């Protein structure tokens, strides 16, 4: 019997820590210590956890533990019920290890910068960050689609909380809009899941696939197709793909920089987790892949063209982050092992790079309290080292070698050519150039043009923790750029299993 407790700890630890931190009002030192210890442990656990499955409550399938099946009637032991999963199951593999490690790393640096940039760190804010991380880890691990939905809702609430806690102008309005739109997408996703349960009699994804592949369910049944459509719709909300790209970019822009860094990581990994489930369940249907590619193309084009015309750098980053999600979707939609590996690699890279950019540009907010690029300028003189780090982050996002997104974007272009869709490769190259241009426009206006007379730069020093975070993100970008096999070797097993 494979009972790996550490798999569950990846979700339980941040939840327990979050609940405890929530109780610690005005105990600043205790909040700092507990938050930092939890944040340090989070990326370490996936590295120590062996691959395998965790069955909550010990409910393994009867076939795996014959002692449980003793005395049961032949109606159960002689049927497929014998194989089915009885309780919630979490599955941990090399790809999930990498993604949860990166999520843990981003959580650590978000917490690290938050604690050092805030004079009085709020336990409630740390609660929200850890709850979000726990939820997204659970979404990545869970093989139970109903359990996934529960954490999908908790993640949405945690994201709303992070925006509300930011104290940025109009943040309440944006948070309210996000939750209102979630009130459309969430129930529809649940309806899709319920329909799947009704059709297949299961909430376990592996069991659902079994019923679909073995002729127990008509794969072209209208109910199943509607369920697929509703699950895809919920996926769009969770990821921030169109038509939710506007609200998602607004959400990023209304959070504090460390909050935005974490929020985009939530979106990226939720997109990957639900995207993988959609491919696992419905890849028999060629229209699924066409739809994923179509939606991703729209996200890329809308995200990046909208980013160019923005004047608030947080909004620029928000739209660029949405545009980059399109690259991930293209990889998943191509449906080949190489394409999916490239998409997953792009997801890992994007999570790191966008966090790098949000925290890097966040230093401008820290020094000026301004995010409107029209009112900024001359920031290069204020802190040239941070400016260089931000420039490198922008180059990474655009896919400039030897940084990591170069490798994943190159793989995506190769995968699209191999799949007979060179047009996708051309669009990806075109949009990477425009991404570079968009970033350079923001970088020039903030850092390089003369400082406006009315711009007041605060006398506070950028915390060393923020600079350390940026340097570590750069090291991760360089490492994955120079040695992409560190990531791709972990990801290709999952990708091969999806084809």
């Amino acid at each position, binding site marked *: 019997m494979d009972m790996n407790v550490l798999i569950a700890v990846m979700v339980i630890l941040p939840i327990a820590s979050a609940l405890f931190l929530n109780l610690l009002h005005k105990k600043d030192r205790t909040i700092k210590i507990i938050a930092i210890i939890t944040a340090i442990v989070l990326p370490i656990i996936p590295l120590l956890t062996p691959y395998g499955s965790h069955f909550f409550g010990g409910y393994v399938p009867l076939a795996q533990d014959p002692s449980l099946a003793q005395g049961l009637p032949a109606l159960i032991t002689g049927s497929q019920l014998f194989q089915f999963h009885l309780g919630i199951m979490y599955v941990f593999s090399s790809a999930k290890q990498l993604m949860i490690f990166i999520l843990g790393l981003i959580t650590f640096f978000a917490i690290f910068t938050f604690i050092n940039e805030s004079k009085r760190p709020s336990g409630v804010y740390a609660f929200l960050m850890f709850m979000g991380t726990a939820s997204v880890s659970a979404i990545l691990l869970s093989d139970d689609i109903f359990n996934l939905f529960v954490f999908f809702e908790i993640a949405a609430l945690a994201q709303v909380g992070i925006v509300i806690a930011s104290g940025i102008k109009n943040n309440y309005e944006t948070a309210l809009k996000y939750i209102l739109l979630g009130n459309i997408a969430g129930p529809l996703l649940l309806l899709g899941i319920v329909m799947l349960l009704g059709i297949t009699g299961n909430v376990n994804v592996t069991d659902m696939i079994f019923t679909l592949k073995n002729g127990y369910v008509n794969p072209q049944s209208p109910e199943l197709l509607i369920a697929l459509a509703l699950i895809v719709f919920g996926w769009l909300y969770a990821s921030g793909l169109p*038509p939710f790209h506007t*609200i998602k970019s607004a959400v990023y822009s209304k959070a504090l920089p460390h909050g935005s860094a974490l929020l985009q990581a939530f979106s990226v990994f939720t997109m990957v987790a639900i995207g993988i489930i959609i491919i696992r369940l419905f890849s028999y249907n060629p229209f699924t892949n066409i739809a994923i590619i179509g939606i991703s193309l729209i996200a890329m084009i*809308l995200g990046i*063209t*909208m980013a160019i015309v923005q004047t608030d750098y947080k909004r620029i980053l928000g739209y660029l982050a949405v545009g980059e999600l399109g690259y991930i979707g293209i990889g998943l939609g191509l449906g080949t092992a190489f394409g999916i590996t490239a998409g997953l690699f792009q997801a890992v890279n994007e999570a790191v790079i966008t966090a790098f950019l949000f925290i890097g540009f966040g230093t401008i907010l820290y020094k000026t309290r301004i995010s409107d690029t029209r009112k900024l300028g001359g920031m290069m003189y204020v802190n040239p080292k941070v400016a260089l780090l931000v420039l490198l982050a922008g180059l990474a996002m655009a896919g400039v070698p030897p940084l990591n997104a170069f490798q994943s974007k190159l793989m995506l272009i190769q995968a699209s050519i191999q799949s007979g*869709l060179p047009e996708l490769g051309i669009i990806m190259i075109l949009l990477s150039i425009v991404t570079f241009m968009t970033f350079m*426009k923001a970088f020039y206006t903030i850092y390089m043009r003369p400082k406006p007379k009315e711009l007041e730069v605060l006398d506070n020093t950028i915390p060393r923790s923020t600079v350390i975070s940026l340097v570590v993100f750069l090291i991760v970008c360089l490492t994955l750029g120079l040695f992409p096999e560190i990531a791709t070797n972990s990801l290709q097993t999952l990708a091969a299993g999806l084809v």
Partner: protein
Amino acid sequence: MSFYDVILNKIRKIQEKAGEDEPVTNVTASTMLTAELTLIASVLIAVVMVRLIHPVLMIIMVAAILIIVFTAMPIMPRLRREQNDDLNNMMFYVVVALGVIVALFYWGNLNV
């Protein structure tokens, strides 16, 4: 009138309608122009993929999009106006997207 001036006038008109009184700068017009060209180029290249369904259909669609683009240009200022943070707008597009997705997945699968 050059294309640049057309873009400039269009932005001014849209800003007037939206009640914004910000000046239309060179940067605003240039970024809008870049976004416009990116949008058109990306859509045209994407439509070439219709060749997988039928080459003639692709030619018709490329021609149709070219005509639409040249008659409706500049598109980007309008697109930007539509992609705002207004909840009614967002709700509208969410409901439209839901309808399109359900229709495509349902009839698309049953009839392809």
